[in-house]
């Protein structure tokens, strides 16, 4: 997977990298148990301070998206067991509402938005069961 960072934004570099890896996992570009490049290699290819890379990896590890096997490297974690339906709803509703507000403001119809969500959803990896 290719990462690109831009100094022109207000987002710190470690966070840009964190977001890109998180997105890579959600979209299935990074598979569970896939090995990520070492801090050293990534630092050299991206021309970024190794501490910055290490910080992004540590954050992702704390969030449970990556895990380290000592002496082997950093790997993508298995997808976590799905959260309960209640928790899922609570978390998503808030984000969804923000999208809906913007959609109404832009004069978008409900059908148009649902269509867009379906289209975008095709680009992501989804868990098998939805109970």
């Amino acid at each position, binding site marked *: 997977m290719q990462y690109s960072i831009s100094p*022109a934004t207000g987002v710190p570099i470690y966070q840009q990298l964190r977001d890109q890896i998180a997105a890579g996992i959600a979209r299935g570009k990074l598979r569970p148990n896939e090995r990520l490049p070492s801090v050293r290699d990534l630092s050299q290819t991206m021309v970024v301070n190794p501490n910055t890379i290490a910080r992004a990896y540590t954050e992702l590890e704390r969030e449970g998206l990556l895990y380290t096997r000592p002496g082997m490297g950093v790997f993508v974690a298995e997808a976590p067991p799905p959260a309960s339906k209640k928790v899922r709803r609570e978390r998503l509703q808030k984000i969804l509402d923000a999208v809906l507000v913007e959609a109404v403001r832009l004069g978008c119809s409900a059908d148009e938005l649902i269509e867009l969500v379906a289209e975008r959803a095709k680009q992501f990896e989804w868990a098998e069961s939805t109970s």
Partner: protein
Amino acid sequence: MSDAIVIERLTKHYGPKRAVDTVSMRVPAGCVYGFLGRNGAGKSTLIKMLMGVVQPDSGRATLLGEESRDLMPATRARIAYLAEGHPLYRGMSVGEAIRFTRSFYVNRPFSATWHDRFVTQALDHFRLSTRAKIRRLSNGQRAQVSLALALAPDPDLLVLDDPTLGLDTVVRRDFLESIIHLIQRSGRTVFFSSHMLGDVERVADRIGVMVDGVLRVDCPTDYFKTVLRRVVLEFVGTAPRFPACSGLVSQRQIGGRLELVIVGYGAEHEELAESLGAVNTEVMEMNLEDAFIAYTRGESAPLPTFEWETAR
């Protein structure tokens, strides 16, 4: 971990001007420190005082635990210094410059190292011939020779005075890659000044910003980006001045808009904005370049209005 550089109240006057004004800072071993400032802000003078090339009026600096005024040769051998503009003896060929520099590191009474293989590899990498005359090299090539000579003794501390100044984009990227390569060996400290904010953000753990001889910012690079916010307040009619408060870096008034740059924007600032009667508040993240400009431009007058537009 110990500190590679300790600066205590370093001050230097040039005539009535305070080029460096009681600057204190510490650079921990293993840190990459990006040192920013506009031309004439005193970066170069500070670096020259660090290296003992300029004598401070007061204050002191220690490099690798030794007073910088009189570094022992053995300590100097562990420090690489790239002076501004990469000075080298122009009459020499690349090979002669290497032999000249090498002679100060091999067969010395103190322990010093010199990696011949590294120099050969570096010259191969940069496609430089040992027979080329230094005076015929481009700026970029001279910078590359300087870097190879500075790194051959395997230094623990590198002090680089605007190493990428005047280099084209490709050579600059090469240079950055070399620095990244260098800091892979842990414990190596790099202190460099630069104009290129993007470069600094990529490689620096910490940054310092110097304004008119004073060190205004000294913090981790990520932190600088996270805590600085541009806040735009909108008013009905002409915007008032924002009162002095903690964290206020700069303000600019453009008609009914007041643009503020604030460190750690919070409730205190929100209340102040409300009390001034702001009708709309917008808070934005800032990139390093905007943050740098906010810090270094200082208090700027409102933009002049173009009278001819409104007079009609």
